């Protein structure tokens, strides 16, 4: 069996499932936002922040952010193991990606609950 410790789930099956499910969540979230914008042609700040003040929207957004984080990690990890043959470069790239995803996730939570 091929082993690899930098892959979080260590299972190709769980990675594969994560990619499918997170893609679905992101698609639904994107469609919802597009539909919302279409139904509110004269959108102003109050309506927009009112939407994000509701708990269900915050949960929905957090779900989308987490999906985005997982999707990005699995995808970029895969790309790095395909194309970066130098171990140091690959490890460096993966560290930067993990850090960026972590920062964006925390920042996203702050934006959602901070306002």
């Amino acid at each position, binding site marked *: *069996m*091929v*082993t*690899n410790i930098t*892959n979080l789930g*260590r*299972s*190709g*099956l769980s*990675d*594969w*499932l994560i990619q499918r499910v997170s893609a679905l969540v992101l698609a639904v979230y994107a469609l919802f936002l597009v539909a919302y914008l279409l139904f509110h042609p004269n959108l102003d700040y109050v309506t927009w922040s009112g939407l994000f003040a509701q708990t269900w929207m915050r949960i929905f957004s957090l779900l989308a952010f987490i999906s985005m984080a997982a999707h990005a990690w699995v995808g970029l990890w*895969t790309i790095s*193991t*395909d*194309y970066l043959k130098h171990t140091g470069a690959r490890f460096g790239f993966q560290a930067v990606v993990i850090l960026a995803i972590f920062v964006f996730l925390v920042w996203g939570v702050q934006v959602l609950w901070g306002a």
Partner: protein
Amino acid sequence: MSSLQVSVYRYNPETDSAPYMQEFQIDTQGRDLMVLNVLTMIKDQDSSLAFRRSCREGVCGSDGMNMNGKNGLACITALSEVVKDNKLVLRPLPGLPVMRDLVVDMGLFYKQYERMQPYLQNDTAAPAIERLQSPEERDKLDGLYECILCACCSTSCPSFWWNPDKFVGPAGLLQAYRFLADSRDNATQARLAELEDPFSLFRCRGIMNCVSVCPKGLNPTRAIGKIREMLLSNAT
């Protein structure tokens, strides 16, 4: 004039510092020859050219090569199928180390095949005569057992190019499914466990290069999908 311009990849590691393309003019006399016939005619002109062939009828799988950019068996590929603007470019199968000219080292390819344990495994007591199979069970092996291990598929697969040591490749996975689908084999769990990691099977991106080149018309992508379904139903 029915002269075909053939450009052949040449590399002899003992004498050449780098590979190069050598040009040949071949008089086909207007016949729609097979690419292997043309190679034989080239060998008459320059006997130092190395390539593999044996059955010359698409059965042994020795003469897989890249013809005008597409992998296939030289012996059953007619000039009319591949020649464009009267030009033919012949290269070794991509992604494997070149030993000489059109001959590649198939070691990695066979290693992945071997890893799939391509033989029947059954730990129940052997019956007196043989393990029987219904016609329906036998039908499940159609489209799987016909593989001749020519490596045209795996060497056209980008995932195999990048990770030939970790990704089994379409040919090996097709054979893995050939035994997973066999009603007489009961090593299913061990076979699936060998494929669950992120590389062995899941590096397949489903771009179907393998399907488009297989000279036997087999469909490794479908077999890979079936194994994935088995893994999924096993785990959920």
